[in-house]
């Protein structure tokens, strides 16, 4: 069952990417560029760990991690909408802020650098699908946040394309002028979307410290926020597409961990090249060599 294990670890590694990518879609569909996902994940990972460390309850950690990400989202919304700070500048500052704050607090709270002590993590949920062999082995016993991620992808897809709220959100990102003249409160829509984006980024980060390692390590988001952004672009700002891209990136991460430099079909692909794959593919996708990725029209613009 070695190959089923590869699928399982694909799902494990894709979960934080999916969660953060959904956050990215929310923000960007409303017209706000969000390169701060990386920082939101890092903050979510740290405060997730801290909540579990303080209370022993990983779910309180998850909540605290989501709150921390949401707060960063709110700041991003306020900076970009209220003070009209350039979206990229705000995102860069928030990423640096999150890195500084989490490392600062890690040293201050635990007096030693590098990583936190182990904390209580999230236990897997067993769905009791024992009678369905393959399905049970793949998704019958996964992290609760994996199931949550599936629900969020479907929910976001429905919300964006099947509800009036989704229509308003998308119109804020496509044509804020028209949206405003149709009575939509564009600023409010963006505040909500970007804050929710931060909550999802924080949740993705909490998964790293409470669903995978059960501890926090300095800079542990390790570029996953940017891979999530890549998944958003690769999935053409569509929840299902982005989730698919996240699974694809997760698969190569799992494969890379599995192979550890071993040959596959007689060819050895160094793990570094597999790790850089999401980044390379994103550039190729953006350059339009495999279907042009088109962003929401008013993304990043002053409205």
């Amino acid at each position, binding site marked *: 069952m070695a190959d089923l294990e590869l699928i399982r670890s694909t799902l494990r590694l894709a979960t934080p990417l999916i969660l953060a990518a959904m956050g990215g879609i929310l923000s960007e569909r409303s017209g706000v560029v969000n390169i701060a996902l990386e920082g939101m994940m890092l903050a979510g990972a740290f405060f997730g760990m801290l909540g579990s460390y303080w209370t022993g309850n990983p779910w309180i950690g998850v909540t605290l991690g989501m709150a921390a990400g949401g707060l960063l989202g709110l700041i991003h919304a306020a900076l970009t909408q209220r003070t009209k*700070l350039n979206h990229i*500048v705000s995102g860069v*500052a928030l990423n640096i802020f999150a*890195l*500084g704050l989490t490392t*600062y607090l890690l040293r201050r709270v635990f007096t030693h650098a590098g990583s936190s002590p182990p904390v209580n993590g999230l236990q897997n949920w067993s769905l009791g699908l024992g009678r369905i062999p393959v399905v049970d082995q793949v998704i019958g016993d996964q992290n609760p946040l994996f199931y949550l991620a599936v629900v969020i992808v479907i929910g976001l897809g429905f919300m964006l394309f099947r509800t009036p709220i989704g229509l308003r959100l998308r119109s804020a990102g496509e044509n804020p002028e028209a949206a405003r003249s149709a009575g939509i409160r564009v600023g409010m829509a963006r505040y909500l979307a970007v804050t929710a984006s931060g909550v999802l980024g924080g949740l993705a980060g909490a998964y790293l410290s409470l669903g995978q390692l059960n501890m926090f390590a300095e800079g542990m988001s390790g570029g996953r926020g940017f891979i999530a952004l890549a998944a958003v672009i690769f999935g053409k700002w569509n929840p299902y597409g982005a989730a698919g891209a996240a699974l694809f990136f997760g698969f190569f991460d799992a494969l890379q961990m599995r192979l550890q430099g071993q040959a596959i079909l007689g060819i050895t692909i*160094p793990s570094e090249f597999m790790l850089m794959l999401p*980044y390379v593919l994103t550039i190729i996708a953006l350059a339009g060599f495999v279907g042009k990725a088109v962003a929401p029209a008013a993304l990043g*613009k002053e409205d």
Partner: protein
Amino acid sequence: MRRILAIAANPLAALGLAFGVASIVIVISGENPLSSFGAMFAGALGSGPALSETLIKTIPLAISGLAVALGLRAGLFNIGVEGQLLVGGLAAAYAGYAIELPAVAHIPVCIAAGVIGGMIWGYLPGILKAGRGVHEVISTIMLNYIAFYLTHYLVTHQLKDVHTMAPQTPAIHPTAVLPQISQSGLHWGILIAGLCVLWFAFFLSRSVKGFELKAVGQGPDAARASGISVPGMIVLAMVLSGGLAGLAGSVEVLGVHHKFYDQFSPGYGFDSIAVAILGGNTAIGTALSALLFGALRNGAIGMQLATNTPKEIVTLIQAIVIVFAGMRLLGRTQAVPSPPEGEGRGGGPHG
């Protein structure tokens, strides 16, 4: 005098606010901001060796800060300085150990290798933007990680020093080492950084290309109307920016480490964003703010030893400086203008 004050007022306000917020963070975490910043000051400037170490840290910050500033003057946000610095540093180290030459030729060859390495890594996002409308912010973020994994792969395989377990290149030949000015380790890179500042000022204020580059930054449409090749200037700006970043990496390798190793840069390429923005994207402003952040980075180490305040308080200060100085400098103006051709053709994302 009044004019100078008017220019300095805003960056100083940004700095004041940043230190204010940092003080609050220090108070909340149960330390004394005054003694913390006092220890930081002593660690940065309190003695000859401390001052020397501050200047050593200023060198890569100044050169890479100019790289960011040059991009921003052309309206391009080069977040890829870290990646360009890694590629340039590795190229310089390779030329330093693989080639044998007398010092008079070896140092320039190594520096040229590093600059060209950085230029190539800057050319990619430049041509992707000019030719395919790919927003440089996204492509440079991606290229940072590609550079990180690529250099990591090379220093663990082909370019690895076989005599050690560590992921690093062999030491460069003594002929490639930038000579030291003082006993305390300050090297001639300080002169190179100074020349970069002069070149930057001259290029933007006295040369035709520099004028065209600024024109593109102020408004691609107007620049195009006056006959400037906007795609050409985008590529040129990214190549020059990448070249400066590569130079920063080379000088650090040739002057300080004398080899390339994984993570030899403690994030100079990211610090450089705050350096450029606080410096108002000007030559002298960037040099001064590099000196400031060199002092903060260096002083923070002393502060961490003397007090319970972790050195990462400087990272927090940087983030806040970017927000406040960025509001004045880049807030309402378009720091990241739409790709000139991109939009009409369906655009890059984040257009």
